């Protein structure tokens, strides 16, 4: 590729997509500023920077994983599901009940374990190192329970409304969200509960330049590995399986899918299975990484998930993954410049600014592909 070609490409880009250039410029300026701060004595250390990026990746992958399900249901069922955050919570509670049951059976009262009641996390000692099987079982149950839940809700709530407008479904999903959240409230109570034994979670100190270290928690690592694996799984499923292709086809053009002979109801069911499963798994993993949860953590996370999904262009699962990581890193890296109270504001700010310039999101038009 010759220089002139590069030049003309650049010019075309500048004319056709000025926003890209502005975005690149802003990112470049911020990067330079980070460089300056790194260089300044007593400024940002490379260990801090590495920590921000790593934390951003962890948060981003968890949001992205939850976002994939939201994006899928949006592209195939055509509505923004405000209940998704509470699917995340439901999955987490179901999964952790089982993890505790596995980890503490014989030691503690079954009901206390099943309702994730008051047991000292020190005594229970749940961690990836101590009780990997319990955690694995919890993860599987989290996904399975959320799949069951989303299929049940689809049958009761959304199926009778299949031909309604997206806005009606959206409002109904707000109702679902409230009902779910407060059912969890009644069953499990209000308090934030500790889940894992912080003492027994392994930590890896990775040396970075300048004498500092990046501390990588074992549960963070677990989240990153499982989230990446699940995303890869979704990718393979959509790209290589017949049903996955049918899902993409239906997201692309529902009418054509119908005349092509794709069984649309079955695709819808499968969408809930994958979307719900991912929501439950992500809820479980987020709670694992944080070591604690309460009845509304999914709802609080929902706005962030929406921000990620919209940033990537609602309907695009790769957009959701990318958007999640972007939001996560933006949120954490913003700490270089602004106080931590505003990190959420930074994440929403990034979303709003992107929408101002690209009203359909970054990956718009690349529906579920």
């Amino acid at each position, binding site marked *: 590729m010759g220089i002139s070609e590069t030049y003309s490409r650049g010019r075309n880009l500048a004319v056709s997509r000025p926003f890209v250039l502005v975005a690149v410029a802003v990112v470049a300026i911020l990067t330079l500023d980070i460089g300056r701060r790194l260089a300044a004595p007593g400024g940002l250390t490379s260990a801090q920077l590495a920590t921000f990026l790593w934390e951003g990746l962890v948060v981003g992958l968890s949001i992205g994983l939850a976002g994939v399900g939201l994006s899928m249901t949006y592209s195939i069922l055509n509505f923004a599901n405000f209940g998704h955050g509470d699917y995340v919570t439901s999955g987490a509670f179901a999964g952790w009940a089982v993890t505790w049951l596995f980890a503490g059976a014989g030691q503690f009262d079954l009901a206390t374990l099943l309702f994730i009641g008051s047991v000292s996390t020190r005594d229970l000692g749940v961690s990836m190192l101590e009780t990997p099987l319990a955690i694995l079982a919890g993860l599987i149950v989290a996904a399975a329970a959320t799949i069951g839940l989303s299929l049940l809700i689809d049958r009761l709530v959304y199926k009778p409304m299949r031909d309604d407008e997206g806005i009606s479904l959206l409002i109904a999903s707000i109702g679902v969200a409230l009902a779910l959240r407060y059912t969890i409230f009644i069953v499990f109570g209000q308090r934030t509960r500790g889940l894992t034994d912080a003492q027994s979670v392994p930590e890896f100190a990775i040396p970075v330049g300048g004498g500092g270290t990046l501390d990588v928690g074992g549960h963070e690592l677990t989240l990153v590995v499982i989230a990446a694996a699940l995303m890869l799984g979704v990718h393979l499923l959509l790209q290589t399986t*017949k049903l996955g*292709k*049918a899902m*993409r*086809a239906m*997201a*692309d*053009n529902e*009418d*054509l*899918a*119908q*005349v*092509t*002979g*794709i*069984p649309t109801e079955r695709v819808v069911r499968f969408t809930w299975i994958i979307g719900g499963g991912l929501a439950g798994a992500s809820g479980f993993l987020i709670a694992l990484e944080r070591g604690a949860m309460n009845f509304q953590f999914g709802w609080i996370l929902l706005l962030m998930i929406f921000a990620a999904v919209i940033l990537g262009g609602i309907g695009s699962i790769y957009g959701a993954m990318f958007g999640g990581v972007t939001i996560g890193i933006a949120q954490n890296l913003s700490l270089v410049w602004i106080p931590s109270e505003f990190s959420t504001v930074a994440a929403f700010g990034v979303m709003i600014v992107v929408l101002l310039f690209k009203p359909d999101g970054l990956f718009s038009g*690349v*529906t*579920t*592909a």
Partner: protein
Amino acid sequence: MSSEASEAERSEASKRAGSEATREHGGGGRSEASKRARSERDRRSVAADGGTASSGATRAADAARPDDSLLRVRDLDAGYGDLQILTDVHMDVGDGEYVTIVGPNGAGKSTVMKSVFGLTSYMGGTIEFAGEAIHGLAPEEIIHEGIGYVPQNDNVFESLTVRENLEMGAYILDEVPEEQIEVIYDRFPILRERSDQRAGTMSGGQRQMLAMGRALMLDPDLLLLDEPSAGLAPDLVQEMFDRIDRINDDGTAVLMVEQNAKEALGRCDRGYVLVNGENAYVDSGEALLNDEQVRKDFLGG
């Protein structure tokens, strides 16, 4: 009833085609058809012997026996929601026949096709395919019967690759029919070249071929084509029609709606002219094309 028509009559009809096309009263029975008063607006003269429907030039034998026809539409009333578009539409497609529906804008041409494929509100009449009633069936069931449908617009999955589009066409099969994909590739070599390319990146003509290829994946007995030439550059139009000819030559019956009446009527076995949601004429393509009255009516509406 058309079987009563002698060979002589048919050739007579062919000769007469230059002056006046035969008015169709539908094969379902003349008495029934004549009971239904035609719209007063209809200024066209009804042919004196009005019964004999077809005078197909190339496949006259098939066309002349609508009782054996693959697709048999009688007294069809259909529309969208509660809006009725079609009134008493009759149509026959014989096995392996190539039939075209032409007519002015808004005549209900595409509606006929969508009705056959179960995409409209069915309001009355019968649609039989291979002797079985298919009206009221859902599209996915009709696909099982052996009908393929290529819609006019948005007829490829843009975010899927060419090959994936073809696979979707055979969704109802348990296995991806590799040999059929090869058949389609042989028929449309450009699709093999672009096999892994996303359909959204292809040109209009290529998309049209892909859409046809997808509809042919189940090797249907009847292919429904809705304006295959729409939006194509003039040189591609020719190519498109050539390809349809070949599909038909290979034994697939074709029912096509076309705006490009000249080209379509020139190539088909039989043509139907539809006006205001009702049958106006039926005759061999050539005959219709050369009929002064049809020419005038077609320009008017």
